């Protein structure tokens, strides 16, 4: 780890101001950033902690929309329960340590291809709220570890319309328990949405073919014969592109079955 200054603002305004400094970087739960710093893969001069800002925390359920503050940890989302599939997802991220430190804003800002939250946001048609705008999930995830966020822009909240039916199923890589393939399906006002994490070289994506099939018949059998091409899937030490492509089909069926 290289030396850095740590700012701990208590208001959003102070945080934005601090982030205006040269090579300043926001620090949320630190579950990815701190290991990255330890590996000396990043060298920010200042870290601006977001976890001391009350207005970034908390969960509100109003008019069928669940609004979660950007600095809310996974364990709090897991406990909430008003969007059961989302709470289920949050309750199975990493381990207790990760769940009590890691935050939803941090996870979405980082957009790790194996992270769980991006699938939830995309499949729910969530809105990513930042300090200066609102971004629809469909426009937010732009690639591996890449998002529509500008430099210095931070996620203040995420708004999830609570769907009629939803479920998340992940196939865990047995050693790290990261998602080798994770699928979040929803059925609600926005129709059927299917988002896949862990599998693609482009990060989280919507499987539109499956969405169409499930729109007319929300049942695993509707997916019979559908598959995603192996081309563009991640191939690494934990699985081939062909295996991941195959798992996308199986795990989507499981998610649909779980959503009921």
């Amino acid at each position, binding site marked *: 780890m290289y030396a850095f200054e740590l700012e701990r603002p208590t208001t959003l305004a102070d945080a934005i101001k601090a982030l205006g400094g040269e090579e300043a970087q926001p620090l949320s739960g630190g579950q990815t950033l701190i290991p990255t710093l330890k590996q000396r893969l990043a060298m920010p001069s200042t870290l601006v902690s977001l976890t001391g800002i009350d207005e970034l925390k908390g969960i509100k359920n109003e008019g069928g929309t669940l609004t979660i503050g950007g600095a809310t940890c996974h364990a709090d989302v897991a406990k909430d329960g008003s969007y059961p599939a989302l709470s289920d997802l949050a309750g199975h991220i990493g381990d207790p340590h990760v769940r009590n430190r890691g935050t939803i804003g941090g996870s979405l800002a980082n957009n790790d291809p194996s992270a769980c939250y991006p699938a939830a946001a995309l499949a729910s048609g969530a809105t990513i709220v930042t300090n200066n705008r609102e971004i629809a999930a469909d426009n937010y995830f732009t690639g591996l570890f890449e998002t529509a966020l500008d430099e210095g822009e931070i996620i203040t909240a995420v708004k999830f319309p609570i769907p009629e039916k939803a479920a998340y199923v992940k*196939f865990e890589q*047995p*050693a*790290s328990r990261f998602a080798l393939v994770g699928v979040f399906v929803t059925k609600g006002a926005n129709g059927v949405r299917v988002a896949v994490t862990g599998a693609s070289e482009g990060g989280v994506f919507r499987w539109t073919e499956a969405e169409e099939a499930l729109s007319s018949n929300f049942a695993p059998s509707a997916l019979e014969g559908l598959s995603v091409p192996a081309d563009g899937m991640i191939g690494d*030490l*934990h*699985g*081939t592109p062909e*295996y991941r492509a*195959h*798992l996308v089909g*199986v795990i989507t069926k499981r998610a649909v079955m779980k959503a009921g």
Partner: protein
Amino acid sequence: MSMGKPLPHDSAPMHVTGAARYIDDIPVPADCLHLAFGLSHVARGVISSMDLTAVRTAPGVVRVITAADLPGVNDISSAAHDEPLLAPGEVHYHGQPIFLVVATSHRLAREAAAKAEVVIDPKPAILTIDDAVAVRSYFEGGPLTWKRGDVDPAMAKADTIIEGKIEIGGQEHFYLEGQISLASPQDNGDMVLATSTQHPTEIQHKVAEALGTPFHAVRVETRRMGGGFGGKESQGNALAIACAVAAHLTGKPCKMRYDRDDDMIITGKRHDFRIAYKAGVDAKGKLVAVEFDQYVRCGWSQDLSLPVADRAMLHADNAYFIPNIRITSHRMKTNTCSATAFRGFGGPQGMVGIERVMDHMAHRLGMDPLEFRQANFYKKSKPQETPYGQPVKGFILPDLVRQLADTANYKTRRDAIRTWNEKSPILKKGIALTPVKFGISFTLTHLNQAGALVNVYADGSVTINHGGTEMGQGLFQKVAQVAAGEFGIDMGRVRITATDTGKVPNTSATAASSGSDLNGMAVKNAVDQIKDRIARFLAVDGVKPKDVLFADGKVTAGNTVLSFEEAAKMAHENRISLSATGFYATPDISWDRTIGKGHPFYYFAHGAAITEVVIDTLTGENKILRVDILHDVGQSLNPAVDVGQIEGGFVQGAGWLTTEELVWDDKGVLRTHAPSTYKIPACSDRPDVFNVALWNGENHVPTIYRSKAVGEPPLMLGISALMALSDAVGACGEAYPNLSAPATPERVYMAAKKVGAKR
């Protein structure tokens, strides 16, 4: 009487409270220095330039040592002298140590090491078995073949012939305590080391060689290891020598431990194998001929690869009589870490080869694999010879397997599984019983010896010391039980002391499952001498020394009854020596490895396991549902310790063949160097139903209390997990699954898909 009691491990309370001292817990002097290696970042090449200026000037750095700075021999190998401590100009694997940093802390040493600018001109690296075969990169110039009978004509006459091959992955030891050493300089340039090693004597010898001193100038102490599994037989040499050399050059104590990633990258692992086979049976389903080609990926240096590959050949028969057999062993030299000893020492790979043949042939013949195995067992009544000419005596597997199959309802469950599978299109269950016959003794005959030192103090308390090392397996407790039992005293009177080359010299590694056999006997020999002296002293008034009894904390000589402490005190006051060294050499063994004939093993240890699994054919996910084991430890020295070894052995063996996958990339970089990428079985992965029983019997040869070795054999019980998965995959269709190891979900899925497609 302490013998045969299920006493807990002597350090169990200390293990769970954290009070047990490992090397890193030993307080070090304030001026202690810490070491880190700088490693090669290419698999093969020539060092064209090495700029260590930034390393030398980094904070806390006291000294930087390269090959040219070493005071003595630059070698860490067990025997072959082909493994430099620091690469002298050429590098042979990714992760090979090139230079050594000596700094004021572990962290500063590591940070400094990362600052080196080393330029290596890469050369084409030989990474895989295929690469090595293509350029004939062999140890010993070419393959080694052992045979019996005449395979080709026998095969030609066979009624049914199968051919195939299986890939068997390697395995990381994953001892919880990583490699570590601490060296302290003494008067006259002598060196004392505390080392986490299974082989203190080898550390002593190699350190002496590196310092250019006689063996007597180096003393090595090992109280306990946090796991060894063979990974601390030779792999501790580098750290111990590095510490000793740095301590010699700086005059200060030096300590070195590897971080986990470095530990996994630098040190050797279980050899991965490819075994190609051809086997024939006659019309009655009896094996008539088997041919094996065992391809062994040895890595860049010889280390223990020759005896490991030999042991794989020696277990190519497992429990079966094969009249005509040819085993060819290809020991391939590759630019990967030097594969080393790992629990079973090649035996498990050889055994997987023949068990694969049994599974494949039974499938071809449409027979129950168990019945096919039983039909080909060595005969119990009239000892038949192994392919290497040793009569298989005391062979209990026919009875043991029958008993296990009966008590675990093998046949009923197998039938039930068949019925269940017919109604279950997606989930498929499988069941398999595999036997183990494992040869006990070092194949290098002279290693089969042990020494001990037993002291009785004037207050009747006793210390024991021997050449064996404690790595969690319970050796010390078993040997203490021998001493307490022989003296007829409570366990509380016997203190177990750290293995120390200054107390018992010229010892062998604690390996080959031999710890209790050898050291138990050596301690008994020492105890017998002391008892004999006390008995002769007390045997007066017509009492014969042999009639003096040591039991229940008392020494009884005719009408004289003394407490053990009174006897000790009296003996001391009458100038009777109460200290003795003991010795043991295993009888009846001989071996010629060049022709593959002899009597390499004193006896065989046996066992069998039935594993039931379920697989999801859509994903390959799988789970062990139930395991039943019946294992032969002869007359158990300690049933609690033995059952622990059997449970752990099975889990480690099943882990090797199912979840533990080592992945090197096409540059020869090990990509699985942490628990985040390499999956060892955790406590939650053990089978939900796990029935382990000990075979009721005694060793047919006179080992210590007729017990049997238990360290390695149970690992091979895990082979039943692979064969059960094969059985489950086979339920998807007609074709043989051809499942390789480790049978990860992806491999199980692909195999099930292939078998299903051929339906």
